[in-house]
């Protein structure tokens, strides 16, 4: 019994060491040879925000209070999803050389990629709060509930990463398809236009998990209330649904990926 516990502790220590080293590697590689390094993860969303608010403010700001915050909340969530899943999609193929030579848990590569995206997201989130303050919205304890959609989004990203990375091993076309998909997703996530402009069709947006997460964040920050049970359930179902499907695919194909690398 004592031995079993000891073995388990050593196993966790080993996995933790590997995980930390992989995170370090992914993070270092991301900004290697750039002069501004991590600043890029702040510059890029800010530039997007600047351009979008300049272009769209005249069209959409009239029907929407706190338009900058509205726009930023949407863009922040969407950018995190895109960054995390695109990185996740490549995680198996990029490490094909290692996977086909050393026996390691394959999900490690995806998780370490996600940590790098998560750090980016965290930094952008801080900037977001600066903009929220600039927009004249004062802090409220309700804001702590933001942790719920963020955790759901992280889980959702990991789940989608599992699915995409597996598909990418099997079909290399997925990377081009996914580019198109994310572009379309951006338009149906109500990032820069008020969702009620769609009228009756607005309900259809709830089929889009990203829209659900964005809406949750906007309700808390802009509209000033915590969404109901149904929204919570939807956030949860999308996140863990994706995770379960992804995990099952990994389990099933664990030893088969090798043949397609």
């Amino acid at each position, binding site marked *: 019994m004592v031995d079993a516990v000891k073995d388990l502790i050593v196993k966790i220590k080993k996995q933790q060491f*590997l995980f930390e080293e992989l995170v370090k590697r992914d993070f270092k590689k991301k900004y290697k040879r750039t002069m501004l390094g991590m600043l890029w993860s702040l510059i890029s969303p800010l530039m997007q925000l600047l351009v979008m608010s300049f272009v769209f403010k005249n069209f959409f700001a009239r029907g929407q209070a706190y338009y900058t915050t509205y726009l930023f909340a949407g863009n922040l969530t969407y950018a995190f999803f895109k960054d995390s899943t695109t990185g996740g999609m490549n995680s198996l193929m990029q490490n094909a050389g290692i996977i086909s030579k050393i*026996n390691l848990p394959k999900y490690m590569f995806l998780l370490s990629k996600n940590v790098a995206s998560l750090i980016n997201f965290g930094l952008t989130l801080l900037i977001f709060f600066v903009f929220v303050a600039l927009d004249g919205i004062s802090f409220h304890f309700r804001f702590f509930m933001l942790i719920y959609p963020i955790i759901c989004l992280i889980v959702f990203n990991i789940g989608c990463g599992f699915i995409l990375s597996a598909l990418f091993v099997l079909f290399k076309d997925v990377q081009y398809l996914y580019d198109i998909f994310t572009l379309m997703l951006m338009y149906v996530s109500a990032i820069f236009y008020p969702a009620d402009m769609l009228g009756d069709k607005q309900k259809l947006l709830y089929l889009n998990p990203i829209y659900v997460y964005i809406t949750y964040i906007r309700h808390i920050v802009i509209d000033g209330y915590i969404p109901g049970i149904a929204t919570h359930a939807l956030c949860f179902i999308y996140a863990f649904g994706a995770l379960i499907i992804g995990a099952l695919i990994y389990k099933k194909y664990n030893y088969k990926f090798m043949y397609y690398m």
Partner: protein
Amino acid sequence: MEKIILNNVSVSYIVGDFSNIGLKDVIIQKLKGTYTQKEFLAVNHVSFTLEEGELLGIVGSNGAGKSTLLKVISGIMRPTEGTMAVNGNIASLLELGTGFDPDLTVKENTFLRGAMLGYTREFMNNTYDSIIDFAELKEFEDRKFSHLSSGMKSRLAFSIACLVKPEILILDEVLSVGDGAFRKKSEEKMLEIIKGGATTLLVSHSIAQIRRMATKVLWLDKGQQIAFGDTKEICDRYEEFLNKK
């Protein structure tokens, strides 16, 4: 104690499916009803047992299934047929240079590789200096990995795998690299590891090396197990076979 037991192990690769001939052709063939999934037997009913402290030399021409067999033993692939038992932690050196990141420094790569081989951080902190000294790369430790020569890269890979006292060591044609002096040093190190009780699998095209080091030899040809047993006897037979070709 028996460290590795293989019982009638076969491994087959799938050939002729969509990743091989393209999705379009698969659909056309499926519609026509002519689609069959073909399998290619890379390892065909191989059986052997290795005791603690033995060194198995694996010989055979290219495409004999040597590397596939090592992949099965190191747990990367699963046998399609047969059973296998491996007792102990494995350090595998399947082809050098893989798993290293060209952009990271030598030191960072050493820790990364150590983590991949399943060691703890404490252990790597304690062993790092002896690894880098053995590889004779002390003055290069903060240089980028891509700046090393290929001989240096393989020296580092060898040192990481061998200085960490694995119970099972898998070496796929890795001793034929590095300069003469390092080759001698690495052979000595290997013998030391084996004397320390590690079980080793060595793939090599150098019969002289196999004769010098192996306690048992496995001869594969096109996936088939031709012979398994005593080093001298099988090496003689194998050389005779090579000469006839």
